[in-house]
């Protein structure tokens, strides 16, 4: 079984998901078997404003362990990650990073903020 440990920068309690990558997809958003797919399919929310279609960076996660157990990032994903706040060398978009190893041990950190949202205004 593969395992993803999810840490939240917001301070929410960490979560652990165990799953068999061969059972993917677990729901309908993002690449089949992606971190987003796994989390949503196990009732753990991860922002995905564009519906998991690689058109925003709201599902940005920082991979703390197991980066090499994920699919390679496409040019399109890299282009989007360029615009993600808090970009790190092990940043990925949850909707695109597919867990490929059946025994993968992955740790991700979900950042608190994203630049993809403009704050609301009540004074205009």
């Amino acid at each position, binding site marked *: 079984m593969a395992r993803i440990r999810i840490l939240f920068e917001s301070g929410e309690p960490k979560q652990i998901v165990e799953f068999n990558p061969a059972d993917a997809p677990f729901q309908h958003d993002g690449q089949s078997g992606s971190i987003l797919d796994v989390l949503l399919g196990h009732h753990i*929310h991860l922002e995905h*404003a*564009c*519906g998991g279609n690689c*058109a925003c960076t709201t599902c940005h996660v920082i991979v703390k362990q197991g980066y090499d157990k994920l699919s390679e990032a496409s040019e*399109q994903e890299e*282009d989007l990650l360029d615009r993600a706040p808090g970009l790190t060398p092990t940043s990925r978009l949850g909707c695109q990073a597919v867990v490929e190893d059946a025994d993968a041990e992955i740790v991700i950190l979900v950042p608190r903020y994203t630049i*993809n949202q403009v704050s*609301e205004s*009540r004074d205009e």
Partner: protein
Amino acid sequence: MSGEPGAGRRPSYQARIERILDHAQDTRSLFLRIVDGARPRWTPGMFISISIPLADETRVRPYTIASSPEDGEPFEIVFNRVTGGAGVAWLFERKAEDEINFTGPFGAFTLERAPERELVFIAEGTAIAPIRPMLRRVLEQKPGPPVRLLYAADRADHLLFRNEIERWAMTHPQFQFETIIADAGHEALYARIIAEVKRRWVAADGDRTRHFYVCGVGAGVLRIRDVLRGAGYERRAVRYEQW
């Protein structure tokens, strides 16, 4: 807000459909006004994530804001029917005065202000939605760079906002607007676009300082990206959004 672990604290909005405009039998705009007075701000190119209640679940689907921040409310989204598209099917069932819920605006394909170099927009069909407010923004910039729009569709009535864009072309001498209509299928349409891109901005000269904003449907968008970057345009000067 969801009570699931990891659920964010993003503000959500409730908007009322103030007006419906059919551009074609399969293409529609909704004009939305926030119900409770709290108004989102956005940058040209951003989208909202609309909650689509289906039979057994609620899905979130993105719809680009096709109107300009400068115009405020009501703001406009535009969409067309797609095979198997549950989100747009639900939206087509909405009536004036109905209310929808959304979060955002979001987006990485945005343009706050024009670069100093020539700016080329390439769009297809409803993917003119993010380009329209970008165009408005850069054309109002003084002094502004030369701006070109190559807009393609399979049918004339799928070229949205055409009269408005033609008026801009007449009143802004730095702006050139050209269209492609090709009804031989999606692949053929993108083959035409790519041929035009190569002819105009790859083979015609050695200038590689232009900036490009490309929006369309499917892998053709990535092929346009690859043609431009492969020809020597700076990676960050070729911006795109693939629907």
